[in-house]
């Protein structure tokens, strides 16, 4: 174990995965990841093509081209950058190219904010990318290595983003076990695609689909996502065998046994939650590790014995409610109906989440447990005085 910055840990993991092509465009708070990678290259520690592009749109397009020619491609971005490469995100997944990226979580403009929330990647939940949300730096590091195994497996062939809270994880120093090159090599075989651009077999990539076929291509993507559910589990298990670390498969429960109140969430907030929850014996945490594919069955199973479920998230769909809140309710409807679901939106645009906010959420949940539901969801931590 070493104390390193989150961004360094991620860069290190990327290096161990031996990407052929790295293409990313700087944007706070993703920058340190890319800068570390650039330094590895400048110091001869990492041999790869580091392509300094003109925009995120180009970054993802370069990754796309590289992946299509059979190279392992990496990118990293966040927020505005993710939004700018939007079209390419859908394109990469539709072309079934297993690009892996670290999606640092940051708020979306306007107003501009360089600080953390999860509106950016949550807004990308339809894009056909696998989304793994990580809880701490070690997981950000480990999940990256897992991601290539999952994405590149022939049953899956889908891109994956590891979602990591900006600043809170990227800019924090804490003890991390950095992977060894050999153990990574043992775990992660070279990328060996069935189809790639080569004069040896001059295939045409990215043909268009008329109405008699498009729907079936989408269905194949759907099936791949279904298979990814199993792959994510399998890779998590194998990773544990190889590296001795485990973060759950699609979900991970904490204190769920006998919990009457369950906090459902993802990302770094879980750290603070754990500190609170360890003092509360009837409160558990359900971490959504894989947001896409969404762990429908796992969520049903994990929550079936709870009485109140509080979904806590750093995003919301304007004109409705938090996206995770909707998704959890959607997963439970038709199946588990005797619990109350509460939504909490907090931490937007870098609003710090002190432990008291978590306590407040638990308190509210208790009130609902006793007195029934009034407001279904609310913002936590609003400063009423400036409104």
């Amino acid at each position: 174990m070493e104390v390193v910055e989150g961004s360094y840990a991620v860069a290190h993991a990327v290096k161990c995965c031996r990407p052929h092509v790295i293409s990313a465009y700087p944007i706070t708070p993703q920058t340190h990841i890319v800068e570390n990678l650039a330094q590895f290259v400048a110091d001869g520690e990492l041999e790869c093509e580091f392509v300094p592009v003109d925009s995120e749109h180009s970054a993802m397009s370069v990754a796309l081209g590289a992946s299509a020619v059979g190279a392992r491609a990496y990118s990293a971005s966040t927020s505005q950058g993710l939004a700018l490469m939007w079209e390419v995100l859908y394109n990469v997944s539709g072309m079934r190219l297993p690009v892996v990226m670290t999606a640092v979580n940051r708020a979306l403009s306007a107003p501009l904010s360089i600080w953390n929330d999860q509106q950016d990647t949550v807004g990308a939940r339809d894009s056909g990318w696998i989304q793994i949300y990580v809880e701490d730096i070690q997981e950000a590091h480990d999940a990256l290595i897992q991601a290539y195994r999952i994405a590149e497996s022939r049953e899956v062939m889908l891109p994956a983003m590891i979602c990591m809270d900006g600043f809170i994880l990227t800019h924090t120093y804490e003890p991390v076990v950095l992977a060894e090159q050999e153990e990574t090599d043992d775990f992660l075989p070279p990328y060996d695609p069935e189809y790639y651009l080569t004069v040896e077999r001059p295939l045409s990539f990215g043909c268009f689909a008329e109405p008699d076929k498009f729907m079936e291509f989408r269905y194949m993507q759907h099936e791949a996502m279904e298979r990814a559910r199993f792959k994510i589990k399998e890779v998590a298990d194998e990773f544990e065998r190889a590296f001795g670390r485990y973060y759950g498969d699609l979900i991970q429960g904490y204190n769920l046994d006998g919990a009457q109140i369950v906090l459902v969430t993802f990302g770094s907030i879980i750290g603070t939650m754990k500190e609170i929850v360890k003092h509360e014996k009837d409160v558990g945490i359900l971490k959504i590790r894989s947001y896409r594919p969404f762990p429908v069955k796992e969520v049903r199973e994990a929550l079936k014995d709870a009485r109140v479920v509080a979904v806590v998230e750093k995003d919301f769909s304007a004109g409705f409610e938090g996206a995770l809140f909707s998704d959890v309710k959607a997963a439970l409807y038709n199946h588990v109906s005797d619990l109350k679901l509460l939504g909490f939106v907090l931490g937007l645009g870098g609003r710090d989440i002190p432990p008291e906010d978590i306590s407040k959420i638990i308190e509210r949940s208790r009130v609902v447990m006793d007195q029934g539901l009034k407001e279904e969801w609310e913002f936590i931590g609003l400063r009423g005085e400036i409104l």
Partner: protein
Amino acid sequence: MKLRIGAIADPGTSIVNRTGGWRSEKPLIDHSLCIRCFNCILYCPDSAVKYSEKEGIYFDYDFCKGCGICANECSGRAIYMVMEEK
């Protein structure tokens, strides 16, 4: 046909698409006028003008769309267009 992921197609498969059916005019050649400049081959958008030592210039009517470029560009004025009969 089963779909292949990513809409990846095997090379040159559009050859199944007989665009000759699009034609409303049809090129014909008067071999005696041909000076073998090969403009017709050079400029046919559908690669439908062929040549062999034996037959000289001829047309692949499976694909010729009848655009008339070969006739227009023919140095020897050997190619002419006629209405397609069907």
